[in-house]
């Protein structure tokens, strides 16, 4: 490996790594953020390979391309404006504008502030009626599954909508001073918090302090040995010997990850299957035994029927 090649390769890799991370942090399109982050990973992988840790570099690429594509796609499903189409025309800092280049600004589906919110609420309500209200009404109603359904659903709707409205007001107040700079949508879609300038200064300060410390006090003992080129074999031996605990522990950590992901993301609603619905309804906070909450009570024998709700649910399962 000639010296010029090394310098050029380092420059390119470092540029990709840093520019990718910067693009991730500043672009308006979430999908692009993910792609930028991936390019940053690939840049760092390039640096790994330059540092003769080729196995780690390839591992990094493999983990992150596969893992990240999946992550980005999931993310796209849960965001308001993943493509950044509505943000593209917005007021932005220089870096943000640069990394959002090439995004085609599109008319937002709703123009005007109030419309936006009203529509959003509408959607929310529709969504509730489909999905959210179902398990709630089921769990709330232990006597039968459909008798009181409508009533409960309405209650839930009402409360959800209230909560939703208050949330929006909160945002509006939060971002009130920024509003003049933009002409479409609500600030609701902005990707950044109002503390962004402070965060930028803080991060800049951290960066400057770190870099100057690195430049001024490089007190590491650099040795001139060459690593064994067959790193895969060495790492394998290490994993099976000295770092066996790390190996098994990483496996156990992955088990935790699987367990956790399944625990969190397992479905709550099976619309087609009555028995399953009954079972899933159990996934609720255990009802307080004295269901009336903190209202003072006069009736003393309230605990008689305490376990009944759960038992009936279990029989339904």
């Amino acid at each position: 490996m000639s010296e010029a090649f090394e310098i050029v390769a380092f420059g390119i890799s470092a540029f990709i790594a840093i520019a990718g991370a910067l693009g991730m942090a500043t672009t308006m399109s979430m999908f692009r953020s993910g792609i930028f982050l991936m390019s940053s990973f690939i840049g760092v992988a390039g640096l790994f390979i330059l540092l003769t840790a080729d196995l780690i570099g390839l591992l990094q690429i493999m983990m992150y391309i596969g893992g990240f594509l999946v992550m980005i796609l999931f993310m796209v499903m849960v965001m308001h404006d993943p493509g950044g189409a509505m943000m593209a025309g917005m007021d932005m800092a220089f870096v943000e504008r640069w990394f959002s280049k090439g995004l085609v600004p599109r008319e937002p589906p709703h123009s005007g502030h109030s419309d936006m919110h009203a529509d959003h609420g509408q959607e929310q309500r529709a969504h509730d009626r489909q999905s959210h209200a179902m398990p709630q009404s089921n769990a709330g109603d232990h006597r039968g599954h459909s008798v009181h359904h409508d009533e409960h659903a309405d209650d839930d709707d009402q409360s959800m909508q209230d909560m939703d409205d208050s949330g929006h007001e909160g945002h509006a107040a939060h971002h009130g001073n920024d509003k003049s700079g933009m002409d479409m949508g609500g600030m609701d879609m902005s990707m950044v918090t109002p503390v962004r300038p402070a965060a930028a200064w803080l991060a800049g300060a951290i960066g400057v302090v770190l870099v100057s410390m690195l430049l001024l006090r490089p007190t590491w003992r650099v040795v001139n040995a060459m690593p064994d080129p067959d790193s895969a074999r060495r790492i394998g031996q290490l994993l099976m010997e000295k770092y066996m605990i790390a190996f098994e522990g990483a496996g156990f950590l992955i088990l935790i990850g699987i367990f956790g992901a399944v625990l969190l993301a397992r479905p709550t609603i099976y619309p087609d299957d009555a028995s399953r619905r009954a079972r899933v309804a159990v996934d609720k906070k255990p009802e307080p035994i004295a269901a009336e909450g903190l209202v003072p009570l006069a009736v003393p024998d309230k605990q008689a029927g305490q376990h009944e709700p759960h038992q009936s649910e279990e029989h339904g399962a």
Partner: protein
Amino acid sequence: MPEAGSMSCMDLWAVGPEMVLAGLALVLVPIAGWARGPWRRLPSVAAFVGLVIAMGLTAPMLTAAPREAFCGTYAVDPFRAFYQLVIEAGTIITLLALASHFRGAEQEAQAPVALLMASVGGMGLAAATDLGLIVLFLQMVSFPSYLLVLLVRSDRPAQEATLKYFLYGAAALAVMAYGLTFLFGLTGSLNLRVIGANLAGADAAWVAFAFGLVLIGYGFEMTLVPFHVWAPDVFQGATAPVSGFVSVVPKVAAFAGLLRLLLEALPDSLVAWPVVLAIVAAVTMSFGNLVALRQTSLKRLLAYSSIAQAGYMLMAIAVAERTPDALPAISYYFVAYLCMNLAAFAVLAQVERMLGSDELDAVRGLGRRAPWPAAALALALLSLAGIPPLAGFAGKVFLLMAAIEGGFVWLAVIAALNMTVALYYYAVVIAEMYFREPERTEAVAPGAGYAWATCLCAAGTIVFGIAPKLALSLAQLGSVMLR
């Protein structure tokens, strides 16, 4: 058959307890998914048995000569055994309370699995002497804790709590790992003892920088003050027994990890860590106690109280290198803290399960509504406040003595002042229970698990308070560390 050479580092007895629990968790993961009806109890029972076996495997290490296993990445010493026993005991008591709390619900089968996973992580952290393993086990104790907080998926406060816990935790641990890489860079090794030996000539600025970042990570788990922000929300949002678990096990694990790191890897002279830690301790206890004065949610109150308790314990860590009494003092205090905090949360769980609330009103007149749980809660709170002859009192005395011996008289004074302030908010709760007319008539939720958890803890509080020698001798055994 494997060759003999590659097995030289292997020492399965060194990880016996962890293997039992991890293997059990592995088996229980599918069972927790399949169990229906009365079978939901199975994971709890199995976890209980497994934890008892693990305690049996850990206990002999209390008297073992310190040695290293797995080529120096793992320690077998009394220090580790002691902290692992505390973690296992804490897990057992939480398990009892959780089994009653989610009786018949879907979570009854899942909670024990997550508990086992978290306890494996905590136990590993107490024994790991390698930076890589430290990072691994810190994550291993955190991930299941996130899951435990969100056991009830449809609960809005729990959702918020988990999101905060997760994001703060992930960021704090990443920052900490960044600091650890500099320790490696300065010494060329990941092993704590080699780092300790090689750091001698290192640049103090970089050591201080690395130590600061490491303190962020551990401080997050220990709820030290600038990094405590997640704790009140998480304690309030989680179910009460889980709050108890989160207030004990990750904290014990992080204290053990920090102690090991400080004593094995960081020479006293390099960083002014005793002073730094003393200041952080003073800030933490004062902040926790002052904010706790204004709380009406009991779980939130206990959260701030446990922040303050972390401050007390940090006080002794600050002098750990200076006086040999500091380590037993912390260890003793952990036993006391485990008993009193888990008892408080177990009773709170009963109240919450009954009324669906943990506000101060919910315990109004509890002394008349449910005399025994109220007595246990009062006992726990008195012990937390440091009233003789309970375990908390003896623990606080040991901590103060250690601080004075270590030369931090000012810190001991601040701590004593804090303990007096803290008396107030504990007294408010007790007064609410005994000196106010009950506005409602319910007792607390019944359940053998709650009863056992409370009884064990209360018994511990009294016995270790009246005869502190019992736990102190254990703690002295457990202060021998591989160095």
